């Protein structure tokens, strides 16, 4: 177990290094940097001015030098400056994280709360009308773009309340904030709950065929006891994996949903930074997202071993 963990940890670092190179190189093959954008937008063509700006931003250095400067800075906690706002990148990114984290947490809660029980019901009532209905609903959840669902929700708000929810930074009470964030969280979480439902269903179907389930029924355990105690506990493992993967991949839904609802979180900020070619923000944000995703995977692996004594790492 110990040596496996160490190996796994180094692979994780290697992956993160690969991502940093990939992102860095990709951002630099972009035709046109921020100096071009600023100059084109202002209609300026003074070459010396532009060269001065490029020098100031370090864009005149070779790519390898720029990369080493970036990583070296990261090691010292220096995340560079946003090209657009000229504030430290960390100052721009940090305050936006809790907003997105809250949304993601709520969306995941929503997904587990609906997805898992409905998946169990779907499996227990396999091939019934209810099962078909739930499967069609979950498949439509996987088919609907999150931003469209968000727009439909906004539309319902306009129709029934005559206004749309505003996400300003004004301090709110706990319950008010919960209510406000639940709306976009539902838009993001619908897809995840659909995925959770499908996976719980297939995992449950697998387990329900096992001998020990028949034994449990034979000894007279109640249906609910068998389904939720004996079966779900054994079906939970793949579901937990998906919760982990979804936690990282919620980002896609968050990006479009924060854009639709105009929420000032990191996900929308990433899109803005990409549009502005604000390299320090983009590369640090993508690295942050990758670190979160890779760490979650690592934790899920550990959890797996803790939950299933049959799994031994060597």
């Amino acid at each position, binding site marked *: 177990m110990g040596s496996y963990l160490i190996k796994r940890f180094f*692979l994780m670092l290697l992956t993160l290094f*690969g991502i940093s190179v990939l992102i860095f190189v990709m951002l630099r093959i*972009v035709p046109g940097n921020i100096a071009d954008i600023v100059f084109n937008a202002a209609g300026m063509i003074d070459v010396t001015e532009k060269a001065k700006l490029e020098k100031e931003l370090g864009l005149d250095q070779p790519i390898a030098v720029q990369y080493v400067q970036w990583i070296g800075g990261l090691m010292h906690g220096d995340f560079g400056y946003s090209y657009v706002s000229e504030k430290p990148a960390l100052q721009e990114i940090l305050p936006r994280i809790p907003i997105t984290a809250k949304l993601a947490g709520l969306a995941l809660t929503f997904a587990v709360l609906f997805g898992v029980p409905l998946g169990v019901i779907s499996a227990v009532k396999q091939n019934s009308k209810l099962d078909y209905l739930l499967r069609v609903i979950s498949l439509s959840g*996987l088919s609907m773009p999150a*931003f*469209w669902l968000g727009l439909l929700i906004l539309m319902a708000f306009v129709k029934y309340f005559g206004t*749309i929810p505003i996400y300003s930074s004004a301090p709110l009470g706990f319950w008010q904030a919960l209510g406000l964030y639940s709306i976009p969280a539902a838009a993001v979480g619908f897809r995840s709950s659909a995925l959770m439902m499908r996976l719980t269903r297939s995992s449950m179907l697998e387990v329900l065929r096992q001998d020990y389930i028949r034994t449990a029924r034979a000894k007279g355990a109640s249906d609910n006891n068998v389904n939720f105690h004996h079966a779900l506990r054994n079906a939970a493992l793949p579901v937990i994996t998906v919760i982990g993967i979804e936690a990282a991949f919620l980002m*896609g839904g968050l*990006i479009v949903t924060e854009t639709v609802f105009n929420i000032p979180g990191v996900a929308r900020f990433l*899109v803005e930074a990409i549009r502005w070619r604000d390299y320090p923000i983009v590369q640090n944000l993508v690295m942050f997202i990758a670190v979160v995703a890779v760490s979650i995977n690592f934790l899920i692996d550990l959890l797996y071993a803790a939950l299933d004594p049959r799994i031994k790492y060597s």
Partner: protein
Amino acid sequence: MASIDITPGPAEIARGESLWSKLLYYAGAYPLGVVGAGIMFVFVCAAIFAGFISPYDPIRTNAAVSLAMPSEAHIFGADQMGRDILSRIIYGARISLAVGLGSTALGSLFGVILGLASGYVGGWVDLVIQRIVDVLQAVPLLVLALVMAAALGPALDNTIVAISIPLIPYTARVIRSNTLSLREQPFVEAARAVGMSEFRIAMRHVLPNTLAPLIVIATAQLGAAILTEASLSFLGLGVPEPHPSWGRMLSDSAAEYVRTAPWLVIFPGAAISLAVFGTNLFGDALRDILDPRLRN
């Protein structure tokens, strides 16, 4: 996923039956798959015959009908520039299909090459490829596609490439694990015994046997690719004007028209959802038929 315990697997179907009777059999066993295939057929037809069936030119603007409500002349209404929504949705099927099929095919191609090399050659080749796959898989799909799309610039072919890259690791993983088990099969041993070259064995004996899982994962990715194109275009980093992309139609209208012109929001989104829903239904049935091990 449909009717599991009663349906016999492909192996149990009598040999020598015609393709037609097999198709009919599967159609009966997987009604939802038939619905999915039907939906896909409608969208493919819309894409191919867009020039014949769309009532208006999808690009020509007409100030007189700007933001016109759905009516007999414009069944789905018109957008802010007076372009017919229905016509734009019909032409939009071309974009979605082109990006969906294009990026799935490209992603599958690279995925198969990497997966086959990784699984069949093994050793350090496997080690290196697996690290590349790790890297590509660690970044969420839309984030990677976004950065790729921004790096390559807004154009139809660039969007296809940008979406294909994040799809590679999933295909590579599936093909690799499949190849690993195929490599140990007696028929591979036999081919080696008669003196076939390793490259020829990989191409002639291993590759064709990975076709079933490849089709299964490619169909699943088709829906994901269409959704990703819609998201990219919605964010303004996908297919550029004047192409009528479904996602872009929503970004033009988005929050502003939620209040004033809901038909600008409802119909393009419904088109995306329905198209992806169709591929998902069809993909589910296909997976059950082609890969009985995944059946549940």
